[in-house]
């Protein structure tokens, strides 16, 4: 049984002008100890999916269908109201949230409370969830600081005394404090410089294999997932376009959007190649395109793409692509340098 199984999850946001179809029928699963990279552009629904899993959706989000089964339990049964919104406070969920599923938020700069010492914020999380004394919790924080590579004498500092990289590391320590089974990292290194980024990604990778946690890394940067994840899910306009192992997605690309995304990234490795571009702009999720959502921008578009939503094409070995022509296009799509 996988640790996490999402089936046909549909999350829409209610806004003045209608409904934002942020997440429209996403299915994926994650095994224990596995890392999944969730890649897509801004507003493709990747953060909505993450907040759906951790049950942190805002009050204008309505879950219109689907299941989120974590460790054999459907989380939506616990927390969903009749109208599809999530209860703001649900005691049963508190046993799962942070204890079993924790998050590393985007922008650690704003995720820490500026008027409390960083160490106290982590101690608070431990004491809240586990019946331990503050002294025991503090010892745990010291171990965590060792683990993430922040000097122990910084435990009693305030967030403004930390550098950006240290804040992000403290956030990772907080996410790991209760030995969760699943950590969701939402753009964990986007605001950081490359050297700090490489240290943090390296640290995340080490910890993940040491502690046997499952992890979902959400990012727009394909080079970050290439470095950290074993499997990749590519999202476009609220839907999954391709999912498979990192190798499959990079080297046996089966979806034109993935191909465009990979082709538009420059690299310091190999020869310089002309970057390919995807024509047009990401669509509005209030009125998403009919049929395949990528069809207005797709260079291989046919009539069927305008009307029929493509089913998942099985490319073998758990590699799926939501494109009518995956089988025909496979082998021609991955940019030359990756083959």
């Amino acid at each position, binding site marked *: 049984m996988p640790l996490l199984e999402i089936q046909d999850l549909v999350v829409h946001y209610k806004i003045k002008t209608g409904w934002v179809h942020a997440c429209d029928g996403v299915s994926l699963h994650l095994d224990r100890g596995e890392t999944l990279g969730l890649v897509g552009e801004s507003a493709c629904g990747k953060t909505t999916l993450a907040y759906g899993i951790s049950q942190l959706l805002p009050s204008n989000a309505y879950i219109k269908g689907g299941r989120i089964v974590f460790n054999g339990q459907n989380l939506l049964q616990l927390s969903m109201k009749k109208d599809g919104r999530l209860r703001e406070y649900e005691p049963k969920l508190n046993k799962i949230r942070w204890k079993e599923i924790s998050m590393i938020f985007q922008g650690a700069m704003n995720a820490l409370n500026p008027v409390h010492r960083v160490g106290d914020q982590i101690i608070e999380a431990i004491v809240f969830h586990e019946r331990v004394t503050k002294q025991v919790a503090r010892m745990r924080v010291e171990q965590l600081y060792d683990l993430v590579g922040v000097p122990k004498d910084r435990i009693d500092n305030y967030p403004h005394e930390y550098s950006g990289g240290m804040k992000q590391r403290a956030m990772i320590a907080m996410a790991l404090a209760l030995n969760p089974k699943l950590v969701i990292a939402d753009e964990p290194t986007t605001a950081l410089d490359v*050297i700090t980024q490489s240290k943090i990604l390296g640290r995340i990778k080490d910890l993940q294999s040491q502690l046997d946690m499952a992890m979902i890394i959400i990012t727009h940067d394909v080079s970050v997932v290439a*470095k950290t994840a074993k499997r990749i899910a590519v999202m476009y306009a609220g839907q999954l376009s391709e999912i498979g192992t*990192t190798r499959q997605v990079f080297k046996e690309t089966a979806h034109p959007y993935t191909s465009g995304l990979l082709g*538009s990234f420059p*690299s310091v*490795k190999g020869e310089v190649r002309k970057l390919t*571009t995807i024509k047009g*702009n990401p669509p509005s999720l209030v009125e998403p395109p009919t049929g395949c959502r990528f069809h207005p921008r797709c260079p291989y578009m046919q009539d069927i793409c305008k009307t029929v939503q493509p089913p998942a094409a099985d490319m073998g070995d758990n590699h799926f692509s939501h494109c009518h022509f995956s089988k025909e296009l496979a082998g021609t799509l991955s940019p030359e340098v990756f083959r």
Partner: protein
Amino acid sequence: MITAPTVPVIDASRILTIQDLVKHFELKQSFFAMSGPPLTVTAVDGVSFSIRSGEILGLVGESGCGKTTVGRLITRLENPTAGRIDFLGVDIATIRGSDLVAFRKYIQMIFQDPYESLNPRFSVFRAVVEPLRILGIGDTKEQRLELVIKALEDAGLKPAEELIGRFPHELSGGQRQRVAIARALVVGPKFIVADEPVSMLDVSIRAGVMNQMLELRDKYDIPFLFITHDISVARYMSDTIGVMYLGKIVETGPTEQIINQPTHPYTRALLAAVPVPDPEHAYPPVPISGELPSPINVPKGCRFHTRCVYATQLCREVDPASTEVSPGHAALCHFAYDFFSMGPYTPPAPLPPKEG
């Protein structure tokens, strides 16, 4: 046909030369610390380079290294503390008043965030025509309209006639940045400073904007100073790369030489750390220690010694001079030749420890 205003060309090969440019910012002190000496941040600490016609210089570095300040000094949005900025033979570092206004025709800037750099109340036409009006270019409305449309089309906004009535909120991020590019182009600049012009854009849009800027360079031979934190982007865009660290350019040279024969230990660390879109890439350990020091207290000797894994006593005491390891490729490191001859950074790269 209207042509953009031109300036008498003195030396076509060197459009811009800056020499020992320095910028200090004085920090505002709290009331209780008013008695002490004022603290200064050395944002730019003696930067020199020159840019030829049609050349793109990529300025790379971590946040806080001073790369944006260099761009703002060249466009004279900040006043330099010391140094020269020779633009087509004229030192523009200290010009003011009407000379400064006249000079703005020739150097334009593209900013990072097109959501903030465009006035939400200005239509596309007004945003792009504004510099023409301020600088008094074009006599009639028709002439200005023609210039605006040409600039928009050069920036890849076609058909321009349909877009000029729109407001920023009706445009996508990529279109906004193209409007910002058109606004820089419309006055017929001789030099463009682009400060992280693609870092706020969506991935699928980014490559298009970068290709557009390369096309513009090819078409008009406009030199660019391209400021970015991303060395992969810098490699794609530039002919020459300058790597900045704590206010100084620590290494500069032809792009492919910097990528393949990085000579300053900091450049080597950057290249080892940058993520590569290839799942099979073997990452070497990043040869760097510690955290970025504060620009208020720049380390003595070589400014990189506190983080350099190869640092010796010499590095702690003596600020290294620039060493030219091959034509046009120089690094501020006592051991530049040793690193240069090592080629690309590969994991076991111990430098024979030197004391001296």
